[in-house]
Structures are given as structure tokens and as C-alpha cells.
């Protein structure tokens, strides 16, 4: 009898090796790794495009590329970074961490999980292939505003189809996250006892399910306008170009929070661990996250204050947008209160988290300035906006992902990264990120529009500095890759609980964590 059970168990663990292991895997850790490596690859592809942009903008006059190609680079850089680098990175982290954090063996829907990852390489192959078309890739900006996007070359249906695939992948991923969190928590883990990262991902998953179909609708209408003779967005046929912007940003603003809420969850996990003190105001953190998510659906038109809305509309969207500062402020205050009278140490994940708080808050301040409609008429579509959203997305979202990787790497691999190199990586990244993006505030305020391949000579100085910073930032990330590979070559030495102040079920597992996280659910009191 017992041999029989052993046999079954062995069967259960049997899996193909080599490439087929990764293609057929239904394991949350394997899929998490796939997502994270894929995200890293996309981060470098998108980053390479950013460097082409910054190289051209190093000095006035056109030196390297023609304007049409420049526009393809800005468009693709955004699409790759948002849909290829950031979103998959957070899904990868969710895959690795959610089952371990709630005491489950795996995700609730493992085959769906496999599928939602394997859609991505095909979608991005198609998206990137448009760059090699004779008519080039998409060049109307990642926002795809018609009528301009309707003028695009042959790339347009390919871009739209790949966005549809990405949307499908995200929705499948979100369904899996919700099913896992709601059904597979260990006995005793009530909703208000869940780790905060789990909470932020639960809310993010609902945002994804609500927002992605709206994008799908908008781009499908673009497609029919272009190929099937409809005129949803063309004025000549009785359509309305502004309608697209409303629909797009009804997706677009929740999308912004899809990129930042899981980051909040990561920071709320790491700050208490290295302060050796419980997260301050857990309940209010949950409520603040939920309020930000709800508000995200009634602020969309602040991206389009200049389209000529009625006064009442402008006032409404100004007020609701300003309101977001309240729950976001609560989060920042709670982080600071968590550190207050803690016993802090400053390992690499903590350093990235502290930089996150400061630099994300600076991005929040410029966001508040942008919310003020009359001032936004000046800021809108200038480099001030570029500075703002890069502050919340690079030292915001990306720093959180990097912090999470350093924090959980010993749990995932059983190996400790080199702390000195980690700190060097942190300082280089943080210095260069500011050299890159801070001067953009200045040129934006001084009047430089965004999305231009060439500029008037008075903007030269700060653009040169930004370009130098961008190349420094890009090179610093090669160090990150080096650190990752160096860590993987180490022997297994990491303790089960890799950080003195770390809390949560994942630290009760051995390092590296077993293939099926919790075979029997732990008890939570």
C-alpha cells in the first residue's frame, strides 16, 4: 500500500526536462520565473529604445534618426515597458509569492496560468516585428489617439491584435489571482489577516478585469474605423475623436494604478521587515488601497484637460483627482510611522524601498500640480508630464520590483546575493535615475513639448544631462543582471528566514522553497 502511494507521489512530480519543462509547466514558481525573466528581457529592449531617444535628444538638430522613426521609438518604448516589463514583472512576483504567502500549494488555476504566460512571447514577437515592416511600427504614441493612429501604416492591425492578446493574458492572470486568494488561503487566514502584498494584488486583479476589456473595446473600434468603414472616431463620418480619449483613459487611469498598487504592497512588506516593527495602520493601508482603486475610475479625464471639456467637467475631474492625494498621503504617512522608532538596517531591498518612498512622493507632488486644471493647461504634454510619470514608474514601480527581487531572491534560490554589489547597484541606479528625470521638470516648465525629436537650443543643457543620466542608468542595470547570475552560481546557504525582521508564511518554508509550496496548509491564528 505504502509503495503504491510513493509511486503516485513520484508520478505527480514527474515532469519533462529541458525546454518542454518550461513550455508545459503548470507550477507557480516556474511560471513566476518565466514571467520575471521575460520582464527583464523586455526591460532591456524597451530600455534600448529609450537610449535611442535620449541619444537623439542629446543635442539639438537631428543626428541619428528621422522624425518618423523617433515617433516609433517613443510609442514602442511605452508599450514595451508598460505591457512587457512592468505588468509581467508584477504577475511574476504574484505567481511566486501569493501561494507561499497564503499557505497554498500552487495557484488555483495552473493550466490557465501556463497559458496566460505563453501568450506573451507571441504577442510581443508580433508587436516588435512591426518595426521591420516597410511602413514601420506604430508611431502615434502608446495612447493611439485617432485620427493620427488611423493614418498609420500596416503595423496598426498587428499592434491592435497584440494588445488584444496582452489584454487576454492579463485578464486570465487576474482571474487566477482572484480565484487563488479567495479560495486557497490557509485555515485561519481571514481577509484582514492577509499579507498586504496579497491585498494589493487582489485589488489590482479587480482593476485589471474592469479595465482591460475597455481598452479592447476602444482599439477594436479603431480597427473597424480603419478597415470596416465605421466612423466612431472620425469627424468626417459623424464620429468623435475625443470619444476615443475618454474610453482610452477610462482604461488608462486604472492601468496606472495596476502598475503601482502591487508596488505599494511590496514596499509595505519590506519597510516593516527592515524596521523590525509591524506595518503601521494595516487596516488603513487596506482601505487606502481600495479607495485609490475606486477613485481611479472617476478621474480619467485629467489626462485630457485640454480637449475643451465643459467647465463643470473640468472642475469635477480636478476635484476627484486632487482627492487621490488623500489615500496616497495616508500610505506615505503610514510607511514613515512604521519606520518611526523602529530598529532599522539598510540592506539593498530596504535602500530601494526608502528611495521609492522619497522619489515616488516627488512624483506624487508633481501629480498634484498636474491635477490643478489651470496650471495643467501649461504643463500638459510637456516634459514636466514626462518627468512626472517617469518618477512614479521608474523609481516608483521599477524600484519596487527590484527591491522585491533582492528581498525574495534568497527564498526563491536558497542563495544570497552579494550585498556590497547590491548597494553599488542601488546607489548607481538612484543617482542616475535622478540625473535622467529631474532635469525634465525644468525643460518641461520652460516650454519643451514631449514627443519631439528635436528642440529649440535653449533646452540643450538639461537635455544633455538627462541623456548622460539615461546611459548611466542603462549601464547600471547590467550590474543587476551580473548580480543575478553571480547569485545563481553560489552554493545554497540562505537561511529559511533570510532577514531578521521578515514576517509571513513564506519564511516558514525551507530556502529554496519546495516545488509545491505548502503540501499541507499551515495554521494561521
Amino acid at each position, binding site marked *: 500500500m505504502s509503495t503504491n502511494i510513493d509511486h503516485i507521489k513520484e508520478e505527480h512530480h514527474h515532469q519533462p526536462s529541458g525546454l518542454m519543462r518550461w513550455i508545459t509547466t503548470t507550477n507557480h514558481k516556474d511560471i513566476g520565473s518565466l514571467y520575471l525573466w521575460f520582464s527583464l528581457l523586455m526591460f532591456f529592449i524597451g530600455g534600448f529604445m529609450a537610449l535611442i531617444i535620449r541619444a537623439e535628444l542629446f543635442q539639438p*538638430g*537631428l543626428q541619428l534618426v528621422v522624425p518618423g522613426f523617433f515617433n516609433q521609438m517613443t510609442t514602442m518604448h511605452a508599450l514595451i515597458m508598460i505591457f512587457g516589463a512592468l505588468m509581467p514583472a508584477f504577475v511574476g512576483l504574484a505567481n511566486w509569492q501569493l501561494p507561499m504567502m497564503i499557505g497554498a500549494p500552487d495557484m488555483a488555476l495552473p493550466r490557465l496560468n501556463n497559458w496566460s504566460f505563453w501568450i506573451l512571447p507571441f504577442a510581443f514577437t508580433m508587436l516588435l516585428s512591426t518595426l521591420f515592416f516597410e511602413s514601420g511600427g506604430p508611431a502615434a504614441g502608446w495612447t493611439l489617439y485617432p485620427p*493620427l493612429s488611423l493614418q498609420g501604416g500596416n503595423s496598426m492591425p498587428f499592434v491592435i491584435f497584440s494588445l488584444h492578446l496582452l489584454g487576454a493574458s492579463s485578464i486570465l492572470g487576474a482571474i487566477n489571482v482572484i480565484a487563488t486568494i479567495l479560495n486557497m488561503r490557509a485555515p485561519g487566514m481571514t481577509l484582514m489577516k492577509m499579507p498586504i502584498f496579497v491585498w494589493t494584488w487582489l485589488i489590482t486583479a479587480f482593476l485589471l478585469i474592469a479595465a482591460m476589456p475597455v481598452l479592447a473595446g476602444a482599439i477594436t473600434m479603431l480597427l473597424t474605423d480603419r478597415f470596416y468603414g465605421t466612423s466612431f472616431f472620425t469627424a468626417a463620418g459623424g464620429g468623435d*475623436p475625443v470619444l476615443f480619449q475618454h474610453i482610452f483613459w477610462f482604461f488608462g487611469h486604472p492601468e496606472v494604478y495596476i502598475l503601482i498598487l502591487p508596488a505599494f504592497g511590496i514596499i509595505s512588506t519590506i519597510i516593516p521587515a527592515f524596521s523590525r516593527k509591524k506595518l503601521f495602520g494595516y487596516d488603513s493601508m487596506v482601505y487606502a488601497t481600495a479607495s485609490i482603486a475606486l477613485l481611479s475610475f472617476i478621474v480619467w479625464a485629467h489626462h485630457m484637460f485640454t480637449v475643451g471639456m465643459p467647465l463643470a467637467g473640468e472642475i469635477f475631474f480636478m476635484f476627484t483627482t486632487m482627492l487621490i492625494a488623500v489615500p496616497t498621503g495616508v500610505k506615505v504617512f503610514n510607511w514613515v510611522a512604521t519606520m518611526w522608532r523602529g530598529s532599522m538596517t*539598510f540592506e539593498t531591498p530596504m535602500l530601494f524601498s526608502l528611495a521609492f518612498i522619497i522619489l515616488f512622493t516627488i512624483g506624487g507632488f508633481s501629480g498634484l500640480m498636474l491635477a*490643478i486644471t489651470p496650471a495643467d493647461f501649461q504643463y500638459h504634454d510637456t516634459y514636466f508630464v514626462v518627468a512626472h510619470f517617469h518618477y512614479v514608474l521608474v523609481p516608483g514601480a521599477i524600484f519596487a520590483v527590484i527591491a522585491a527581487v533582492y528581498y525574495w531572491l534568497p527564498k526563491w534560490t536558497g542563495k544570497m546575493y552579494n550585498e556590497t554589489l547590491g548597494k553599488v547597484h542601488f546607489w548607481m541606479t538612484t543617482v542616475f535615475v535622478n540625473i535622467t528625470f529631474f532635469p525634465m521638470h525644468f525643460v518641461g516648465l520652460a*516650454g519643451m513639448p514631449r514627443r519631439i525629436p528635436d528642440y529649440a537650443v535653449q533646452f*540643450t543643457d538639461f537635455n544633455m544631462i538627462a541623456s548622460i543620466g539615461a546611459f548611466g542608468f542603462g549601464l547600471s542595470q547590467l550590474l543587476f543582471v551580473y548580480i543575478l547570475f553571480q547569485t545563481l552560481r553560489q552554493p545554497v546557504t540562505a537561511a529559511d528566514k533570510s532577514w531578521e525582521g521578515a514576517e509571513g508564511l513564506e519564511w516558514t518554508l525551507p530556502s529554496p522553497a519546495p516545488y509545491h509550496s505548502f503540501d499541507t496548509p499551515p495554521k494561521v491564528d
Partner: protein
Amino acid sequence: MNRLSALLIASLASVSSFADWEVNMPRGVSPTANAAYDLHMLIFYITVVIGVIVFGVMFYSIFHHRKSKGAKPASFHESTTVEVIWTVIPFVILVGMAIPATKTLIMMEDTRDSEITLKVTGYQWMWKYDYVEDNVSFFSKLDNKSNEARQLGSKIDVKKVDNYLLNVDNEVVLPTDTKVRILLTASDVIHAWWVPEITGKKDAIPGYINELWVDIKKPGVYRGQCTELCGKDHGFMPIVVRAVPKQEYVKWVSLNQKNRVADKSE
């Protein structure tokens, strides 16, 4: 390394001889641009104060509550009172910002009682201006010198071109001390018309007619650019407004009306 940094400093020093290190929004020459500037500075200073306080507390904690200084972690982790305080105070500050912002917005959107109307139409990639009452109409696009210099591999030193990328063949002429209503539309894709010192931007959208108003208080030449991505030459459709005293404007109108009539008789 030293030589590299010396080279870097030298190259930066050389560029600063022709360019300036402008870090802020220019002060305006019309009521709407001035109001935007004032609001911008107000909100900026408020955020600076909040930043100093929040980051101050954070850095105090970082320097004093560290394990290497023997800090023992406290055990407190919640307080409803504190949460209510830091929900209410930001809310009150926001109300304080919203009041002047709303007043300014209402002032900006009030285009009534204008004396003349300028219709602006965006094209890929130039602007068309129609002086509705005065029967003057012309296209305005990037001047030839900038246009030659901006081509890839032109070998022209753009720093030697006058107002590189910010010069046009035909300037818009507007009278000072006059409320001018500007109507905006476009013929192909969406553009946006922006001259920072005169007014914030507004989109020019096919099928729409948007409104702006300006009242320029100081004669001078004011430059701006299209600010909505409108295709490959989006970066090359500048706007130049020459503000002149009323009498001069009247003269300019009569001169250009004549030209227009002459054109017609051809």
C-alpha cells in the same frame, strides 16, 4: 576619469554660452498665463513645505532609529486618532488649493466680451490663421532656415540659426490690451496650440471648435509650439505671435487686407 570629467565640464560650459538654464515656467504677459503661473508657484510651495516635513521626519527616523545605534523597535502599530488626523489635514490643504484653482479656471473659460476673433486651424504640419472680423487669412509654417537646418545630416550648426525651430514665415499679429477670442479646430488630426507666455494650450480637434482667450499686456514677440503629437513633423510646427499696440495692429490689418484683395483679383 579626471580628464573625462574635465571634458564634460568644459563641454557643458561651452553650451551654456548660448543657452540658458531656465528651470521654471516663464511669467506670463496676459491675465490667464499670469494666473496659471501664480497657481503653479502656490501649489509648488505647498508641496515643498509638505515634502520638507514628511522627508524631515523620515530622515530623522533613518538617522536615529537604526539598529547600529542600538535602537530597540517599539511595538505600536496602529492609532485611529493619528489616521484620522492625517486624513483630515491633507483634505483641508486640498480644499485650500481647490478654491483659487476653481476661481482661476472659471476666469480662464470665460470667453465673453471679446473684441476680435482669431480662428486657428491645425494642418499637418502648419497653422492657418483667419481674422474673422478683419478678413485677413494666411498660413504659417516653420521658416526656411530652421527647416533646412533640421534635416538629418544637414551639417548646418543649428545653434547659429536664429530662433531655431521657433521661427515661422508668417507671424500672427495681435493687438495688445484687447481681449482676443481664439477659436481652435483642425483639418486632419489633433494638434494643440500653445504659446506659454500668453496662454495655456488647447487642442485643435477635427470636428470641434474649442475656445481660448488672451489679453496681451506687453508688446513683444512670443513663441510656442504644437503640443499634441500630430505625426512625423509634430516637432516642426511652431507658433509666433507678435503683439503690437492697437494702432499698429489696425495698420497691419489694412495692409494685409489689401494684399488679400490683390490676391483675389489675380
